[in-house]
């Protein structure tokens, strides 16, 4: 590392670096973060390092990854900066991230149960986010509903048609929520939870921002969102609020230096600035509202702002197993899409029928009807594969689709497997619906 000792996180030394204007130049950043977040950070960074000019290029996470992959031959970017750790994992696996050792002080090893930085030093957590439930107060009032604060609340029949979520295959952070629940509640129980929640979905949005947007406009009442969407919507004046359920995971948003960066030194300075106390402080800007990873930064936090380093209730229940999650990453996404995203209408109909039947037989007098409802519930709960199979590396390989060598062989094709799952799921949902309707008519 050709890093100068002066490139270090504290204010005083950052000023020194600024004086050393010889290290100047343009630093090109590929990011998925909105302008309202990158703007203040860019300003603060350039003020602290007048020698550098930050050029921010905004692309969605997946376009950003594809852009870096396609332009690797003559790379023009210095920094990749985005939320989802999985995007960084993909870049790392392709050898597109440089191994660096930025100077940073006072940042813990872990946030909740999740490791803060990549063990190999290719990317670094700079802010934390957790998933939770966001709701529109006007909407809930009009529908006479109470805000849901736990995942299990969202499975209640009164929320039917009022909930929105993004698909895990669309957003890495949504994926982590799905996986968190699967690890927290167990494979079978976790999927069952998701399906009963999904039965109450209004919609599965294509972009992760579609969920806060839907809640803000009042298109649906409650949304499963990442915390800063809730905080920043509220800060912009929307009648919305947000809560962390007990089972949630805090995950870091990350930054990494691109391999063969045209301005490697500038890139490292930017990473160091982000991790420095004054870089961390910018995260508390009302339009950004992300949880700093440096506990010292919470000293300036506004009233009521959650502090995961003191409030141990946030994201502490689940011991998140990163290896487990990584092993079945694409498989879980595919399973979610097959069982929920693509068959939402069938699932909604089945869940609604069960809810109505249960309401009618709430007294429990009719044993035959209760047995039918039980059967219907079991059909909806059924998952095509068990946990052991989900962790079988050979089976999971069907979904990674990346043959590293020409000699690699995969036994089955994803389309074949998905088609089989789909047939089973559709069949189960329609049977469950019939049974529940039969129970309702009794």
């Amino acid at each position, binding site marked *: 590392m050709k890093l100068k000792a002066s490139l270090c996180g504290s204010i005083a030394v950052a000023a020194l670096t600024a004086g050393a204007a010889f290290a100047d130049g343009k630093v090109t950043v590929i990011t998925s973060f*909105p302008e*309202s977040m990158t703007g203040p950070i860019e300003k603060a960074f350039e003020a602290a390092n007048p020698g550098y000019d930050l050029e921010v290029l905004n692309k969605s996470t997946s376009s950003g990854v*594809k852009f870096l992959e*396609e332009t690797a031959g003559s790379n023009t970017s210095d920094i990749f900066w985005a939320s989802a750790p999985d995007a960084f994992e*993909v870049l790392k696996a392709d050898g597109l991230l440089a191994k660096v050792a930025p100077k940073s002080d006072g940042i813990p090893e872990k946030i909740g149960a999740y490791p803060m930085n990549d063990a190999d030093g290719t990317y670094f957590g700079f802010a934390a986010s957790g998933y939770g439930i966001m709701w529109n107060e006007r909407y809930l009032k009009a529908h006479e509903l109470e805000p849901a604060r736990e995942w299990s609340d969202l499975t209640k029949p009164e929320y039917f048609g009022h909930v929105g979520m993004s698909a895990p295959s669309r957003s890495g952070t949504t994926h982590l929520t799905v996986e968190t629940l699967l690890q927290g509640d167990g494979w079978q129980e976790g999927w069952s939870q998701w399906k009963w929640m999904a039965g109450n979905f209004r919609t599965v949005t294509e972009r992760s921002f579609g969920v806060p947007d839907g809640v803000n406009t009042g298109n649906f009442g409650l949304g499963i969102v990442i915390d800063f969407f809730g905080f920043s919507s509220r800060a912009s004046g929307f009648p919305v609020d947000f809560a962390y359920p007990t089972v949630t995971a805090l995950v870091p948003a990350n930054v990494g230096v691109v391999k063969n960066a045209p301005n490697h030194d500038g890139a490292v300075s930017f990473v160091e600035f982000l991790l420095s106390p004054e870089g961390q402080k910018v995260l508390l800007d009302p339009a950004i509202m992300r949880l700093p990873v440096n506990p010292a930064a919470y000293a300036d936090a506004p009233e009521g702002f959650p502090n995961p380093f003191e409030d141990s209730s946030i994201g502490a229940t689940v011991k998140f197993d990163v290896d487990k999650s990584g092993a079945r990453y694409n498989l879980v996404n595919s399973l979610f899409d097959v069982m929920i995203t693509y068959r939402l209408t069938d699932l909604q109909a089945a869940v609604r029928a069960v809810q109505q039947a249960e309401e009618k037989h709430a007294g429990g007098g009719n044993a035959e009807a209760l047995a039918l409802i039980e059967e219907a519930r079991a059909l909806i709960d059924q998952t095509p594969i068990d946990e052991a199979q989900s962790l079988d590396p050979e089976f999971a390989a069907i979904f990674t689709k990346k043959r590293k060598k020409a000699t690699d062989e995969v036994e089955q094709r994803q389309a074949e497997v998905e088609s089989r799952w789909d047939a089973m799921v559709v069949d189960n949902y329609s049977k469950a619906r019939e049974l529940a309707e039969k129970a309702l008519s009794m």
Partner: protein
Amino acid sequence: MSNTHETPVATGLAERMPGWLFPRLSGLHIVALFIALLLTGLLLIPVAQVIFVAFQNPATGALTLQNFVDFFGTSLFRESFWNSFYVSAMSVVVATAIALPLAYITTRFHFSGSILIQSLGFIPLIMPPFVGAVAMQLIFGRNGTVNLLLGERFGINIPFMEGLNGVILVQSIHYFPFILINLSASLRNIDRSMEEAAQNLGSSGMRLFRKIVFPLAMPGYVAGAALVFIKVFDDLGTPLLLNVNNMLAPQAYLRISGVGISDPMGYVISVILVAFSILSLWASFLVMRGKDYATVQKGGGGMAKRDLKPAEKVAAYGVVIFILLVVLSPHIGLALLSFGTIWSFAPLPDAYTLQNYVTMWAGSKTFIVNTVLYAGIAATLDVILGTAIAYIVIRTKIFGRKGLDYLATAALAVPGVVLGIGYLRTFHAIDVPLIGKPLASWWVIIAMALMIRRLPYALRACMAALQQVSLALEEAAESLGATKRRTIQKVVVPLMTGGILAGFVTSFATAAVELSATIMLVSSNNDAPLAYGIYLFMQTPSGRGAGAALGIVAVIVVAIGTIASQIIIERDKKLKASGDVQ
């Protein structure tokens, strides 16, 4: 074939250019070859680089058609295919129901504000990404203005925006201008003598319209309807905004654009989309085959216009205003959003402000200039290529001429993200001389991507226009001693003006709000177009109003262009018309 080099490319301009610019070499063949090379380089090669995976065995990497067998073996895909087909067909029907009265009333009668209707009726095409979606939800969504008011007054809720019907509604509102523009251009080109002949023989009213007027306008109608059908079939934005996943285009997109995954089925679906679009196009050729739509006499061009009786006038105004209100509602919503503060679960915003425009204006001037530049270049090249291809396909016997048409139209079905990745893959290794940057990060490549993506629109309009020009007029010119080039300059292109302008406007307007390919290709904020700026704003709750404000700017920029060309068409028509029946 004449030995002169014809250049529809330089028509108009050519007269003022020195002769050496147009060497008298081998004529149309060179032009055809040049276009073929252009399309190969800018469309075929980049796209092939991306979608070859569709023909690869995911297990071994060998060439195979197994993926296509899987496609038809999967019930989800079969269902998606059927849904896409159903939605496209129904959208054509609904779009026709919207476009036909507008086109008929404005071309057939003396109707004040025809220019306005023709221009406003066009604006739905300019639905900027994301903002249009939000605005539609705010007006027609489950808890949008209309449903909140209906719920308050009558306790009912109409699911305008739910499921496949929602897609059909939004698509028809969005794409009916394709039919309106092409149909109007065709109606204007109908020779009055045909109508008069029919009237002399005792036909009138609906019968006259059904038997004479509409059939004569068929080239324009079919061009527009085919565009609507193919566009809806391949469109991705609307199903995604309504979160309808069980259609082909969203299935392809969802399987291609995830982080770190590239499911071969996504590319298989892309191939199927391209193949089906070409098939639909071919079907539309079959419909038109063996019929001659050209009319010879152009002296008294345009149908006879008559005045409306007072009662008819009221009815006409009623229909027109109702249709305009419906089709412009997304833009009304957009305007409200851009002037509103907070708009959440309420019929209207809580309060009004100009702040969004201030925020937007601060950093968006470059975006606006870039957009006009890129969309202008793209649309200009589109009509030049469109005219040339149309002439080659219809008027010459050059080998493989239909291939040009199919190839250019296939661009319609190529998802923007596929084209974007293909461009990066193909052009990143090539450096631009003098600038020293990779070709893929030079702004011109964005204009090229837009040109390829919007070429099908211009092409259909130019084809329809040329089909209505009689060959006899060209033969007459040539027998009077005009060269091929001069004939095309002085006779063919002037007679096609309406169609060419319609093509220009369609390409320009839609290119101005394109996002999916540009977001891959933008490599510096200084090079970014407007849609990218909207994307930047629309990612945050606080940026919604500012994004809407920029959306309004996009609409205004395009509307100015449209109205300007509308005025040119009208003036052109007046020059042609000898007088109206009073």
